[in-house]
């Protein structure tokens, strides 16, 4: 059995590598097969994204782009009747707004909380509260604030945020989604008696 699995895995890896190679071949032109980013501004933006874009900002981008795509996908869904389609659009928009608001806020707060307890000794000021706990989450052997430490705080904060959101999903998202769905249905004149 392990033989069969490894053959399947090798085939998968080969196909994946071929697909990546093919996609790489599509980039660039005959004249300039390997493009170079010459704009200093663009280069700084790319580096800034790599350093600063945490899961909270990622959730915000996902939410904004969801508003531009998902309602239209629901509107084009001819597999369900008109009423279901209308109410699903209202619910989708409500869900995106509720999910993005809570998702962004909780992630951001959790990352901030982790940051507050991931301090280096020189960052602890005399007027700070809970001085003893400020180093509680700092990884072992870290001597200075590096990009890796920033990403560590983002990762730890996001994991904490996911645990918190398992509960807020029901406590905040679900009721807020229901409220907004009814509100949008009312504004749009959709028959939504059963959802009230």
């Amino acid at each position: 059995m392990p033989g069969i699995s490894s053959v399947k895995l090798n085939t998968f890896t080969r196909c994946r590598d071929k697909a990546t190679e093919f996609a790489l071949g599509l980039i660039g032109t005959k004249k300039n097969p390997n493009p170079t980013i010459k704009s200093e501004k663009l280069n700084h933006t790319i580096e800034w994204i790599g350093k600063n874009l945490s899961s909270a900002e990622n959730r915000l981008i996902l939410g904004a782009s969801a508003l531009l795509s998902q309602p239209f996908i629901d509107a084009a869904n001819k597999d369900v009747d008109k009423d279901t389609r209308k109410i699903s659009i209202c619910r989708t928009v409500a869900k995106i707004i509720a999910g993005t608001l809570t998702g962004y806020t909780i992630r951001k707060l959790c990352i901030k909380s982790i940051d507050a307890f991931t301090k280096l000794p020189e960052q602890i000021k005399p007027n700070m509260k809970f001085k003893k706990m400020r180093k509680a989450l700092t990884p072992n052997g870290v001597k200075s604030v590096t990009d890796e430490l920033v990403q560590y705080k983002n990762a730890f904060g996001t994991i904490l945020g996911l645990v918190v959101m398992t509960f807020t999903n029901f406590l905040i998202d679900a009721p807020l989604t229901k409220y907004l769905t009814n509100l949008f249905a009312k504004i749009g004149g959709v028959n939504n008696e059963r959802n009230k």
Partner: protein
Amino acid sequence: MNAINKLFSKSKDLIFTKFGPNPAKMLIVTGVLGWALSSAAQVVAILVNDKIPKEQKMFLVPQEICDGAINVASFFIVTSAIKRFASKLVSTGKLANVNIRKFLNKNPLIDNAGNKVIVGKNLNIENLPDYHLIKDDYKKFKNGIDVVGMTVGSILSCNIITPLLRNKLAAKRQQTYIAKNTTYKVPRISMDDYRNISAAKFGGLKI
């Protein structure tokens, strides 16, 4: 207490070493975790809801698990494929900034093992003998492109592919359900009820 402290300390170090140098990987892993937890929470909510009859639970729980699997699989497959492509763009030197391009043009393209490598094909900048000279510039640029790739991937999977798949699946389920009830002529669920369940089921709440 000592064992808990050790475990906590190990977890911190694991997060630091795995995600510290690779923010895009962190976003993918936490994204998958988010979808999985979200679906698990929906399943638990159905299971503990006294207002849902047992018969409906038997239908709703597998449906929710199926939706969760689609969400997780689509997110993981699409996002990691695009992130991988973005990574390869930079590591093979196909896409570079001015400093990396200068480095590639100046240095002989022979890797640590002594093999001749080609830009955009089999080159891995990290395997070049003088890699340490460009490491900082390269890492910053690569992390940025990785995160851009991951973000594009997650927009594609979460906002386009997954909703399309879910709508198709939900409509199929609705038709099967109605057909089943018509055959037996025992309306176990009204159309209105189904509409509500169906509308509520167009995707789990993404956390």
